[in-house]
């Protein structure tokens, strides 16, 4: 019954918050001209890793993946939000029990509100067919879902670094996607870990 209620709420939130995507195919990812919402901004208090070793120690899985598609686009419901659920294919495994070729469902820290993009703590959505190194932990409540550790600090595209520009300084998703993370305060830290990751994992 509870699951049915949650599903109904998800469908309803999808109906109300994804207006601008009506009639558009999102199986290949969100459109580049999707607007960044300028009226809402989310900041999180979380465990920011101080270095790569700490990040590695805190997670159950370190996997190199290819993004397949968004399974559910998240939305804001009452005083809480649903994240976006994205399917990825595992290309390489560095820690954990997943297998190469396995598909995983990943919770991403963004959603749509009033048909516009809202991300949490400067998170940048994964793109279809692009490859990422992910540092993951299990969801406490959804057995088939993995969460990205330390928000955007748990996701790395080898060719994309963080920018100090806040996400509200961008107009569209297409502009945001040029970066690995938009983080005014800790872009340097992200880029330091990014460099360590390139040295260790980009063989």
């Amino acid at each position, binding site marked *: 019954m509870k699951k049915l209620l949650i599903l109904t709420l998800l469908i309803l939130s999808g109906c109300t918050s994804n207006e601008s995507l009506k009639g558009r195919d999102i199986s290949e990812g969100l459109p580049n001209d999707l607007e960044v919402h300028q*009226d809402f901004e989310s900041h999180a208090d979380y465990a920011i890793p101080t270095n790569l070793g700490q990040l590695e120690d805190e997670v159950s899985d370190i996997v190199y993946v290819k993004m397949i598609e968004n399974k559910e686009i998240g939305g804001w419901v009452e005083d809480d*939000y649903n994240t976006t659920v994205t399917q990825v294919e595992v290309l390489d495994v560095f820690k954990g029990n997943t297998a190469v070729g396995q598909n995983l469902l990943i919770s991403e820290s963004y959603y749509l509100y009033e048909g516009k993009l809202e991300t949490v703590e400067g998170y940048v959505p994964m793109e279809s067919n692009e490859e990422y190194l992910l540092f993951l932990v299990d969801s406490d409540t959804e057995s088939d879902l993995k969460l990205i550790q330390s928000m955007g600090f748990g996701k790395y595209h080898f060719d994309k670094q963080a920018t100090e520009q806040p996400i509200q300084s961008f107009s569209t998703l297409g502009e945001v996607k040029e970066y690995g993370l938009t983080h005014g305060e800790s872009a340097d830290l992200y880029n330091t870990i990014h460099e360590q990751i390139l040295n260790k994992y980009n063989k």
Partner: protein
Amino acid sequence: MIFMSRKNKFAKLILGILTVTILFTLSSVSVEAAKFNADAFSRSKNPRASQLVFFNGADGGNHFNAFNYGRDKMHSTSSNININRTTDRHSANIIASSSNAQDTWFGLIRYVGNSDSNIMLHRTNTTNAGFTTANYRKTAMHEFGHALGLDHQDSPTVSVMRSGKLTYSDYSTLDKSNLTWRYGR
């Protein structure tokens, strides 16, 4: 004698080079500085500090108590910060709640425009991390700090506005100094 003098000069030269090298190395180490006054605040946020209305819709117990605690501490930092409680959610411009979001944070603020906000504590992430009363209070005060426009402070600054599971029972001297700089005593 002349030999000793030359030896002393050589030793002084080496000491000088070492001192300069150490000073240069120390100055190169990236230690984030504390943010003061205007630098401590988000430039885009302009909360109506004298007429804030707070609705506490968080779960009873740790979350509810921590948000009330955070409200009281923030309310008492300046005579120009007035955070009145309400039981009418729709009249509030700071709304507290508990979250089940599939994310890895402890606390969160969602700014609504440049003056209103939703502030949240995460249900499972905080309990799984073994949060104590002081950890909950710190996180709630942190979110109230954001609601009043404060930005994050970096480690190792002594501030409620640092990220992570930390133990604070009140805003730090730096936090209070920044708040009174902006809002008065």
